[in-house]
């Protein structure tokens, strides 16, 4: 075997240094802050005090779960229908699906709010039709709607990627053997696209549970989610520790749920990314 050249041996070194300084070290700081008091001494009090935030965790998990389930229910049929179209139409629809992902979440949420708001387009439309105004912004429904609207493409795309890789002959074989279209869907398409479903669920659940802009804008400031709490605690230096503890717990919760999810799918992790 020939000797490794200088450039081969050291090409990854700047990256490794960068990773250590700006990825690993910051996480060490999160752990450090989570386990120290405001005076810098070691303590478990931040973690122990987290029970005060229990209702926030429960609310966030509920909102994120409902949004994820809705995304799956709306997104799976869309991905399935898309995967059965002509290749050219499929390509165009994929571009259309990715476009909103590149538009800032801020802009999309703000647009949605502009329409649903009390003085917004929806209410003036309803009024001109002679129907009473509706208050949507500031309800749990609005926050969940915002999550579904913002993150739906992240659910559809990985599922579509899985489905479009399926050999069309599987469907034909199922049909030839007497399965109805519905049965083919449940016995062939869904089990074989499970890796895409899993990665879709992760890609919707993680941003939903950690959002703070959606709940601020569409929740009218009435709902405190984990993201809102972390954001608030980090505005004030004396509460960095509790903020770090909440972040740490959320990170661990997410890691555990992702690990559990991945056990359900035997596919490799490169399945269905969002990369162009």
């Amino acid at each position: 075997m020939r000797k490794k050249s200088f450039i081969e041996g050291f090409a990854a070194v700047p990256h490794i240094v960068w990773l250590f300084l700006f990825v690993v070290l910051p996480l060490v700081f999160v752990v450090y802050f989570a386990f120290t008091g405001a005076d810098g001494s070691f303590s478990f009090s931040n973690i122990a005090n987290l029970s005060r935030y229990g209702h926030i965790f429960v609310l966030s998990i509920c909102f994120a779960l409902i949004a994820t389930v809705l995304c799956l229910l709306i997104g799976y049929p869309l991905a399935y229908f898309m995967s059965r179209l002509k290749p050219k139409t499929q390509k165009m629809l994929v571009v259309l699906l990715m476009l909103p992902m590149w538009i800032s979440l801020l802009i999309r949420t703000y647009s949605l709010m502009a329409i649903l708001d009390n003085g917004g387009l929806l209410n003036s439309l309803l009024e001109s039709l002679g129907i009473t105004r509706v208050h949507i912004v500031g309800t749990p429904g609005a926050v969940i709607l915002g999550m579904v609207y913002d993150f739906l493409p992240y659910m559809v795309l990985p599922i579509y990627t899985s489905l479009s890789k399926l050999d069309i002959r599987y469907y034909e074989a199922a049909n030839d053997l007497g399965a109805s279209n519905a049965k083919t869907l449940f016995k062939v398409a869904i089990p074989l696209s499970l890796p895409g479903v899993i990665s879709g669920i992760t890609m919707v659940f993680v941003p939903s549970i950690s959002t703070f802009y959606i709940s601020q804008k569409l929740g009218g400031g009435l709902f405190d989610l984990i993201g809102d709490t972390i954001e608030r605690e980090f505005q004030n230096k004396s509460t960095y520790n509790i903020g770090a503890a909440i972040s740490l717990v959320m990170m661990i919760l997410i890691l555990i749920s992702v690990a559990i999810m991945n056990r359900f799918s035997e596919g490799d992790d490169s399945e269905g990314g969002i990369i162009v």
Partner: protein
Amino acid sequence: MKVLSRIYIPLIFILLYLPIIIVILFSFNDAGSMSHFEGFSLTWYAELFEDETALAALGNSLYLAVVSSVIATAIGTFAAYGIYKMRTRWLSGAIRSVTNIPMMNPDIVTGVSMMLLFVAAVSIPFLPITFGRLTMVIAHTTFSLPYVILSVLPRFQQMDKFQTEAALDLGCTPAKAFFKVELPTVLPGIVSGLMLGFTLSLDDFVISHFVSSPDFQTLPLYIYNQTAHQVKYSMYALCALMVFVILILLFAVNFAGTLGKNKKAKHA
């Protein structure tokens, strides 16, 4: 099934695009209202371009997107090469796992973790770090890195190994082989990584929210601050403009992608 598909697909796509299209339409609304349209005007665009904070934010955003994506692409490309050449499997596996952390972690955790690091760094005397430009460049480079590596590394892995070996046999030094053979082959991946980093940087709000300072605002931070309390119609104009820019960038990325493919087809 077919009929259902015909109705369902357009319905979802219309719902997905409706809010954005409406906001773009109403950004041209003379009335300055979201409830009725009074006539076409560029009032809000004019107001936007007179706002110096907005222009400064635009300048900062572009500066940041260029600088961070170039640094991330440079580090990431060499890193992808290093990972590709690495013979210790556990080491390359470990590096790839750590690389993916900023992509897997919720943005808010990445944001606060970097903020804690910078708070600690600022408190060290003689270290010339302040919140603002520098911390933003570091943060944006960090979250762009995994995406650069993800678009460059597969190009190395799909590359024809024999070409490099031929170059070496014909007397190239490994460094020369890298610049003459390997780099041109992976160039499309590098370009799409660069564009990806650029777009991600322009887009980012959550991480920037934690590592920036009031005197270094980017466009998303500016939108956030402007829309915190009241509705501002010039913000709709800004949103519309940003959507157009993203559209143009996306077409550019796709164009770069097809350019690489055409080249490959020609060589084959």
